């Protein structure tokens, strides 16, 4: 093979960071829509208010969800073993997410087509499920990644899985699921608060402030559990960062508090949890000051910090195995080939800036408050 300008270790690190960026991208962008969906029955009390919320996220939610599609695609292309093990291992959880996500496009599109209260109320609940269930299950999944999943790899690297869906619902995983729900509700609330008026905005501020406090409390609690109580994983053999991806070539130990080890070795990483807590606190403050745009930035910062905390704590692990710790997937042994990572990086460097540019442009075109009056003017409103 011809030599590539970037060595394998660097490419693996870049793709680890890019995976984080894509998942954070989804949590921030798609999180707005999941949060609004979760808040739909609580914040919007009648059809008119609900239409305001749906038309608030309506023009942009489809683009936002592509961050998830892209995250899935990036895991497939850059971390095939991770894609194979996690998607099949968490099978029923994935089905729950998919069924919830299926309700969203049709919910948005179909709800407004028929003027009947029962019809609309049914889709409202569909959209609530479509927001709440993914928010919860993604968080539960992250908790299970920290706990380790009961999978094994046979000598030809075929994954097998020894758990079931209910095995995912441990107390710690439910805690991380709640962190996720709180954080995304906060994100939905700041968007509603900054782009609607009157009673809607007021209710969103109240829910948003509670969600911000819940985010701080639950995230801090999860942090304490991870540091003082939870078993983490540690690679005890030397891993060749330039070697072929073979997850069976290392030794891993289980150790209480090991997920905190990276912060001891690299104190700068403390920035991530600090941003998580500070962002949520600022979102709480800005909501109180009715500073909508700043609350969105604060809440997005909190999401960035919280998701990054999970990723940094795990590093270099992507998915530890509780069944056979030495078969855990890490950044150094579960990536695609050097050439594939290089090609994919090229495609990302070309297209990601373009995506950011046109996404920003679309949000700019659609900027401004959404009210009953503004919807009335739009012939395609939901």
């Amino acid at each position: 093979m011809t030599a590539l300008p970037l060595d394998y270790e660097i490419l693996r690190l870049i793709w680890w960071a890019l995976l984080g960026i894509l998942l954070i991208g989804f949590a921030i962008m798609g999180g707005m829509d999941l949060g609004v969906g979760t808040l739909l029955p609580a914040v919007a009390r009648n059809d008119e208010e609900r239409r305001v919320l749906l038309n608030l996220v309506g023009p942009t939610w489809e683009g936002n969800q592509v961050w998830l599609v892209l995250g899935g695609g990036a895991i497939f292309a850059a971390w095939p073993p991770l894609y194979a093990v996690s998607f099949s291992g968490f099978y029923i959880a994935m089905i729950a997410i998919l069924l919830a996500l299926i309700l969203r496009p049709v919910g948005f599109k179909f709800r407004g087509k028929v003027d009947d209260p029962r019809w609309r109320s049914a889709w409202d609940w569909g959209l609530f499920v479509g927001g709440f269930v993914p928010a919860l299950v993604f968080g539960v999944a992250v908790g299970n990644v920290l706990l380790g999943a009961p999978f094994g790899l046979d000598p030809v690297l075929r994954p097998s899985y020894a758990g079931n869906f209910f095995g995912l619902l441990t107390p710690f995983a439910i805690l991380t699921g709640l962190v996720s729900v709180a954080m995304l509700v906060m994100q939905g609330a700041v968007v509603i608060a900054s782009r609607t008026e009157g009673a809607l905005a007021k209710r969103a501020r109240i829910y948003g402030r509670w969600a911000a406090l819940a985010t701080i409390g639950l995230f801090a609690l999860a942090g304490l559990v991870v540091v003082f109580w939870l078993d983490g994983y540690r690679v005890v053999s030397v891993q060749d960062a330039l070697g072929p991806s073979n997850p069976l070539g290392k030794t891993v130990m289980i150790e209480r508090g090991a997920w905190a080890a990276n912060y001891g070795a690299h104190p700068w990483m403390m920035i991530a949890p600090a941003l998580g807590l500070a962002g949520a606190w600022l979102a709480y403050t800005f909501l109180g000051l009715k500073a909508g745009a700043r609350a969105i930035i604060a809440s997005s910062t909190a999401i960035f910090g919280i998701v990054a905390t999970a990723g940094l704590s795990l590093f270099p692990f992507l998915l530890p195995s509780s069944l056979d710790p030495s078969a855990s997937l890490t950044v150094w042994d579960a990536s695609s080939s050097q050439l594939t990572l290089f090609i994919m990086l090229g495609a990302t460097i070309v297209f990601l800036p373009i995506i950011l540019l046109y996404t920003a442009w679309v949000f700019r075109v659609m900027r401004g408050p959404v009210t009953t009056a503004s919807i009335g003017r739009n012939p395609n409103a939901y």
Partner: protein
Amino acid sequence: MIDQTIVDLSRLQFAATAMYHFIFVPLTLGLSFMMAIMESVYVMTGRPIWRQMTLFWGTLFGINFAMGVATGIVMEFQFGMNWAYYSHYVGDVFGAPLAIEGLMAFFLEATFVGLFFFGWDRLSKVGHLTVTWLVALGANFSALWILIANGWMQNPVGSRFNPDTMRMEITDFIAVIFNPVAQAKFVHTVSAGYVTGAVFVLGISALFLLQGRHRELARRSMVVAASFGLASALSVVVLGDESGYVATEHQKMKIAAMEAMYHTEPAPAGLTLFAIPNADGEPSFEVRLPWVLGLITTRSLDMELPGITELVEHAATRIQNGLVAYQALADIRANPDDQTARTVFEETSQDLGYALLLKRYREDVENATGEEIALAAFDTVPDVWPLFWSFRIMVAIGLFYIGFFALWFWKASRHRLEDNRAMLWTAVATLPLPWVAVEVGWIVAEYGRQPWVVEGVLPTFYAASDLRFWDLVISLSFFMIVYTVLLGIMAWLMVRVVRAGPSDKPVFAIDDEPAIIPAPAPPPAAPRTPTPEFAK
């Protein structure tokens, strides 16, 4: 050993969810382009009727697009969920075009589709037209990358098996992109989508003309549909993806099966129009057109197309050769520094997948008996008769549409769209046919690829996830119930929209109907026949 029930249920689920998804995809491909054409005419001529057309077809497009998005994300996730070993084994190659599809195409389409609906009063005319074209472009790029991925499953070029990672890896990405099978599939599939869109627009417009409603809109829509449809129908048949079928061994097997051609024939082979199988499954009564098959598949007079029997014999030798590769691979795994084994593996690795066919009969394939090898070689034959008939249904519908659109194009150019009610009724009655053609087309392509999931590389049964029976029962029944309910709702909503028809005014209290946005001057609209729904 792999549990065959899990494999069968996984295959059923993938086939069912893919076929549901492909109800919506072709319409998205075709309608988005036609909307872009209509809006271009609006921007160039400034005549509001063309905007009204864009809005009306856009409403139907939106309902369909929502279903496409809902069923599409399932497709992406199912590779990992149900085909974990596939994902590991070929993710290095197959994942890349899927990820690039997201980066280059789906992001574009999904970001701008919102502006298509919500941007009418926020963008300039040219600005909105650009958005519409970007949606159409995104949809088509999306098809390109998905079919590059799919084409690689049919003809796995540009890659090799790496014994150290136990998987296929990219060696030449340019070859993956310009894979002749992928390119032929892309042209064929998007053309089929355009035909679907054209038939949809033409059929509904014909209904309006029969009812005497919205004639201005219907007639213009029919002109667009007839021209667009004729070009697409020619493209879908002439550039059919048989042209890629000679590329590989199993593609040849597929064409032999489609033709029920059990024995090699002298070139150029004849095309079987009709046949009846005998007790052994071989054709006993045939109606044949001489030369035609050889011409359309090989584009030559002297290239021979092998028959099923000859291909099975050849598969048996590849299995023998694959067993050498399998043994060498085992040696390399035991001792990565074994250079002799690596040399042997390099020479034989192209047949490794054939040895895996034996995994269906025994775990220790190196001890396979001659009888098991013969069975595995015979496994390379896909089910002949479903393919034979699927192919014929698809081709018949394709040919029908060339005649259909040629006739409508001729009527449109003579401005006599409304004088023949029988033809209008035919257009309405045949509206579902493109969907029949595209679905049987996928059966030919994917069922015909069996027993391989990646031809010559990985057998389908060997690629499935380690799931439990009840996992699949739950997922399969959920998908089928939810998809069917949603499909029913979608069809009902589309009928409502068609009944209400295009209008200048809101039809529902909450309205997704195309209204004419406050324009500087009232449009010089042609007289429109009011309808009861309209008056409501």
